[in-house]
């Protein structure tokens, strides 16, 4: 099937059909108006179902525990900004720092190693090329849980449990399949003529990669880079088992929920939730086209 959303500019899938403003209004048929109203009612309904829980959680982050449960739908009497201070004291600051360090290292290394491998696989012929490519691609299919127990012991034997470098390397390894797959498709689409011209001018293989191909691949790098930032920031399963003593933010939130069931400081829990949510939502709102393109391009084949 010729689904051509993933074209050269992987950042921009063609989405909604072109619409001329005002067209919808000068309608001749009453039935169409009915359909239109029905569509909007249904779509607004689901939007509310999605957005209200998040809006409610944001609001709860500045309420007292009593207000969260006693008057769940109203604004707080006094905005409880101290919830954030208490959340920070419960370790959220440290979890956030851990997340930022691991994601920074993880994404930089993923992008570098992923595009290196993808570039070589996409643009050079050598024995074993297909084998290596399929080896990477297979990693997208199989459940992490098949390997989680042996993986724990691999990391333990390397002395890397609950360390930054351990988490970074594991994140990179598990991000490589999709990154290689995505960048492979991208490098395939880049024109050969520019690279050849650079070779003529005496550029080395590595020089062509770093000075010519990488800059040309910027839109693709942006899509997959943001995809990796969000993915690694939200990673829960891997740190849960491999970094019990150095929790990242997603893990910290889960721990906080468990302890709030006894402590009952729900305001602080929602403040922590807000701290975890806001950066991702901001990145999403800024780059949502790239995020949606990065996430969907793997499935549209």
């Amino acid at each position, binding site marked *: *099937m010729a*689904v*051509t959303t993933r074209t050269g500019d992987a950042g921009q899938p063609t*989405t*909604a*059909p072109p*619409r001329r403003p005002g067209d*919808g209004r000068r*309608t*001749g*048929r009453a039935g*169409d108006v009915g*359909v239109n109203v*029905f*569509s909007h009612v*249904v*779509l607004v309904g*689901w*939007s509310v179902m999605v957005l209200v829980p998040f809006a*409610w959680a944001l609001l709860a982050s500045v309420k007292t525990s009593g207000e969260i*449960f006693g008057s*769940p739908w109203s604004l707080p009497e006094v905005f409880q900004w101290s919830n954030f201070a208490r959340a920070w004291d419960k370790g959220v600051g440290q979890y956030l720092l851990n997340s930022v360090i691991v994601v920074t290292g993880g994404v930089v290394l993923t992008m570098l*190693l992923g595009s*290196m*491998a993808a570039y*070589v*696989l996409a643009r050079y012929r050598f024995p074993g090329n297909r084998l*290596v490519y399929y080896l990477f691609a297979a*990693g997208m*299919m*199989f459940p992490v*849980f*098949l*390997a*989680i*127990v*042996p*993986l724990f012991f*691999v*990391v333990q034997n390397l002395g890397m449990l609950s360390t930054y470098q351990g988490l970074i390397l594991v994140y990179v*390894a*598990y991000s490589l399949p999709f990154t290689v797959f995505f960048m492979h498709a991208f490098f395939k689409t880049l024109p050969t003529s520019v690279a050849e011209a650079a*070779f003529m001018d005496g550029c080395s293989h*590595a020089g062509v990669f770093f000075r010519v191909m990488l800059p040309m691949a910027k839109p693709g790098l942006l899509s997959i880079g943001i995809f990796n930032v*969000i993915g690694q920031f939200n990673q829960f*399963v891997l740190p849960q*088992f491999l970094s019990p003593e150095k929790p990242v933010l997603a*893990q910290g*939130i*889960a721990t906080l*929920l468990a302890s709030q069931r006894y402590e009952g400081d729900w305001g602080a*829990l929602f403040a922590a939730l807000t701290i*975890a*949510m806001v950066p*991702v*939502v901001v*990145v999403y709102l800024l780059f949502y086209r790239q*995020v949606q393109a990065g*996430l969907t391009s793997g499935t*549209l084949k």
Partner: protein
Amino acid sequence: MRHGQYRFIVGFLVLPLALYAIFVISPFVQAFYYSLTNWTGVSPQFDFVGLQNFQTLTQDSLFLRAVRNNLVLLVGMPLAVILLALFYAFLLNVGGAGSGVGVRGVRGSGFYKLAFFLPQVLSVPVIAVIWAVILDPTPTGLVNSAMRRVGFGGSGWLADPNLALYCVLWVLVWGSVGFYLVLFNAAMSSIPRDIYEAALIDGAGRVATFFRVTIPLLWDTIQTSWVYLAILALDVYALVAVMTPGPGGPANATQVISLQIAQNGFQFGRAGYASAMGVVLFFFTLIIAAIMLRATRRQRIEY
């Protein structure tokens, strides 16, 4: 080609491949090996026990319960997500008021896609915490207090063994619809407009167009989505681990295979046995992908 090409290729592949081999491939291969042993994970000694672990699995009622729950999710989740996402994508694409000349999408489709997709970018613990509190079983819980206001009785939700699994299923569906909406929308908008317009001229209504034109042309995308959703339903862990009491409760109503692997591998000191569960999960994944691809195979339509 120029000299030094092979050195360059090796140089660029060695690091990524080494990381991938150490942290992804080797654990996968080890899992198959350990599944044939009685390794505890604690002591370095273990014996080779053949298929005994797999034999024990067939009589492990907790594991069978987990498999059954996974099967419920495996059937329910893809079905609900695909139906809802197709319906919404269709509304986005042809639900707008027409002018008699053609079919058009609704206004504001960009906003809808942005909003529907949001749960997809947040981490599962965040979503799990929000829903755990929304579905609080006490009368002051958010959903319960809302239901009381409109005259219904409350419910135990995640605390009710008969409902808990369906609550998990609901949150899974709720979080996934947006992604597949965007996916189907992209596929639908690449279908040429004139096909729709031709159908309209021939007197086909919107519903007929949906079943006779849109669905057949989208079949490949739907098929791929089905496989991905099925794998997702098999692999579900974080939601259950964070959201349900126990986790896996109440009364094991939400036990899933991944939870069993984690408990046996890291708490009960049965690493070999947990690896055997991982192998079962692997074959489930493989079988489902094969069945789905076969069952949904149809003639390809080029356009």
